[in-house]
């Protein structure tokens, strides 16, 4: 996101915030979120990808909404209007090509109108037919697998290359030149998790009744479309339906968060990025001390970049009157790894806790044959490895997830051991010395874990780790 894009989005957020209490605000946020989705999607070597990737996301979101609803989708006038507006907008995006207009919203020329209308017709038919087909659970599961399959494909280099090659065939491009970068799908990691949340919560009955307009706004809410936070639908809807006018304090705080985020992401993180972990640099640095400094620089670069982005997103949300959840809470000042994961990328951790850790541990507890420590081990290892693979299906992310799973398990066992044994000779956990030791230990464990995250191969990460400890 460029500073210009950020300024435009912040201005739009402020404008819609000022419309609080009117129907215009919700329509405005819906419209802005859809428009900005196309505006942010960059062109890729795959022809028309900058058009079709956002369109596909929108159409999948519509289908998810249809499946998640308890009643027929066309019953409410507002939903019919939203669908018509959405389809008309997508069709209008193709007009520059049809009417030979030089300006376009998408990064490159849109595809032919016939293919756009064909896609919209198929989606319209699906919207009409889906409520009549199969059970709600079956449709929900099918869409869940579609999203997970797409996610897995995009995150696996081999599968992404094949998918890009097949897409290239459709656009008449060479299969052999396919690369994962062809499918640079903006915000997919976050958008798909919001979609999965709506699907799973609709099955369990926790999802509130949401109109198509509010669902699209929630899924593609423009301040959070690129990198979260991953909000929960019921919480988001509460803020979206808020009728109370925006307070001046909220505007000031929103502005402060945006300014802080810009400073963290575009200045501090950018500067640290110059000196943080890079394979080429590792080969040129001789001393272990410098290796440690490079790792520290990377640790803070990552934090400042991501938390800076979150500050901007939360700040923009405040300007629109929507208080998004926080993603970070001083993670490098936490006294143990469990506390770290409660304060680092909080919304992602909570998502995995809600949809993986809790169901798995509940299921294991019912079996009774698995000991308590085994339940913890399986639950934590599974969660952390999935969080690792969420970043990309590779050995590096797998090991990074495993590294944290190991750390969390050790901490869990240590805490249990300490509770059950008399260890009076050790400083009390709440003492300043214990806390300082815990903070330093946690920070260094996390920092060493970043080696697997940042470097291109597990071997390089391992060699660097050995060099850092003088081996």
């Amino acid at each position, binding site marked *: 996101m460029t500073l210009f894009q950020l300024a435009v989005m912040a201005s739009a957020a402020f404008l819609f915030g000022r419309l609080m209490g009117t129907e215009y605000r919700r329509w405005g946020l819906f419209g802005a979120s859809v428009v900005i989705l196309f505006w942010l999607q960059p062109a890729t070597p795959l022809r028309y990808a900058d058009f079709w990737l956002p369109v596909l996301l929108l159409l999948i979101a519509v289908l998810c909404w249809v499946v998640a609803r308890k009643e027929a989708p066309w019953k409410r006038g507002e939903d019919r209007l939203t669908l018509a507006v959405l389809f008309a907008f997508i069709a209008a995006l193709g007009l520059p090509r049809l009417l030979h207009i030089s300006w376009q919203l998408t990064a490159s020329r849109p595809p032919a109108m016939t293919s756009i209308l064909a896609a919209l017709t198929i989606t319209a038919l699906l919207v009409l037919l889906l409520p009549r087909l199969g059970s709600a659970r079956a449709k929900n599961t099918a869409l869940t697998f579609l999203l997970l399959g797409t996610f897995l494909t995009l995150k696996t280099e081999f599968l992404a290359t094949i998918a890009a090659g097949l897409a290239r065939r459709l656009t008449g491009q060479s299969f052999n030149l396919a690369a994962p970068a062809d499918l640079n799908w903006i915000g997919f990691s976050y958008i798909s998790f919001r979609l999965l949340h709506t699907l799973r919560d609709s099955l369990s009955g926790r999802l509130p009744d949401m109109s198509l307009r509010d669902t699209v706004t929630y899924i593609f809410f423009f301040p959070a479309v690129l990198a979260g936070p991953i909000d929960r639908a019921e919480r988001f809807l509460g803020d979206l339906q808020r009728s109370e006018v925006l*307070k*001046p*304090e909220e*505007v*000031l705080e929103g502005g402060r968060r945006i300014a802080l985020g810009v400073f963290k992401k575009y200045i501090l993180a950018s*500067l640290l990025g*110059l*000196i943080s972990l890079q394979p*080429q*640099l590792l080969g*040129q*640095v001789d*001393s272990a001390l*410098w290796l440690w*400094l*490079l790792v520290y620089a990377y640790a803070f670069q990552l934090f400042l970049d991501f938390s800076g982005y979150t500050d901007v997103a939360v700040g923009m949300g405040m300007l629109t009157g929507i208080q998004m959840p926080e993603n970070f809470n001083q993670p490098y000042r936490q006294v143990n790894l469990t506390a770290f994961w409660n304060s680092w990328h909080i919304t992602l951790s909570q998502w995995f806790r809600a949809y993986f850790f809790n169901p798995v541990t509940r299921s294991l507890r019912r079996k009774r044959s698995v000991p308590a420590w085994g339940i913890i081990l399986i639950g934590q290892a599974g969660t952390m490895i999935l969080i690792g693979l969420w970043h990309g299906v590779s050995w590096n992310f797998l090991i990074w997830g495993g590294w944290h799973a190991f750390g969390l398990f050790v901490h869990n066992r240590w805490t249990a051991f300490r509770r059950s044994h008399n260890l009076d000779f050790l400083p009390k956990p709440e003492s300043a010395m214990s806390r300082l030791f815990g903070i330093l230990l946690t920070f260094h464990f996390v920092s060493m874990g970043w080696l697997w995250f940042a470097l291109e191969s597990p071997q390089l990460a391992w060699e660097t780790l050995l060099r850092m400890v003088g081996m």
Partner: protein
Amino acid sequence: MAAIDWRFVRNVLLKALLLFAVLNLLFALGNPLPWIGRISGYNILFPGRLRLPYGDDPAQSYNLTLTQMDAMFASHEIGAASDDEFRVFLLGDSAIWGFLQPAEGTLTEQLNRLGLTAADGRPVRFYNFGYPTMSWLKDVLLLERAMGFEPDLILWFVTLESGTEIKQLDAPLLQYNATAARALIERYELDQDSADERLIDLTFWEQTIVGQRKLLADLIRHQVYGALWEATGVDQYLPDSYTERMEDLPADNTFQDLGPEDWRDDGYAFDVLSAGFAIAGEIPVVLINEPMFISTGENSDIRYNFYYPRWVYDDYRSALNDQCMDEGWSCVDIWDLLPGEVFTDSAIHYTPEGARMIAEDLLPWIEPYIQSVR
């Protein structure tokens, strides 16, 4: 806490805007860039650079091209030089700066490796003030600034490509230091147009913080790269392979788009060399016609190399020699010193081995100066 109303928000925004405008205005009026450029961690937090900052690919060379002279000199090792030494400054183009040579492989460092001592017992220390663009006036600009660091001897490496009248203002370093360039042109009555459009005059808005944001960001990046300079000793990306200098040459008889019939005798910028000697004043200057690659390939009967047809280079050498004689300058011509195999990607860039050969060859020319001090 008192309740905040929209008037308060409006006032905060207005004050912020006003403060931003005033700061920009003061910045443009006060021009604090020279002062900012001198704020440097080099020679304090990390070692000074062995050569002036220049980098085509900052991410790989941990170095970037700056045009702000104060920052350039503040990051140079000369800032931490000992008072008790015999200082020799090297001026010249990318060959002297050390293109495709590691920092410790440049001619300057090869000369330092000779471990010379002056007659008065002071160690002789060579400093690299070469810079990778081809213009004698650019050398003079750097010399004028470097004189503040009190050299005892100046070795000025020149070649024809840098020495034609039409090329003098092509160097971006001069263009972005238009005031200093104009002052040189006017003070030494050089045959250059001080109103030349290549010299860049910033508008008022371009002098504000917003207008100078890229330079300000570069100054900060330059400081951050200082840490990597210390960590790696790398200040230039050295690729594993590169396109080698041309052995076979085109059948083209022109130089800088001019044929022998178009060439004017006053096409050489010898007045710029005179300005350099005037700036050096009492400090001795040795003018060295630097080595170049001499092709033996196709069309080598017409051209010496990619840069020079034979007719113009022979004429230049003769003219330079006459100029040296007329002005009483100390000149050394080592144009054909190096064998072809030591040249790298161009006719003037050589390997560290080539630099070592030049250093040894120059020794007899340097020694009289360092042995004559008492």
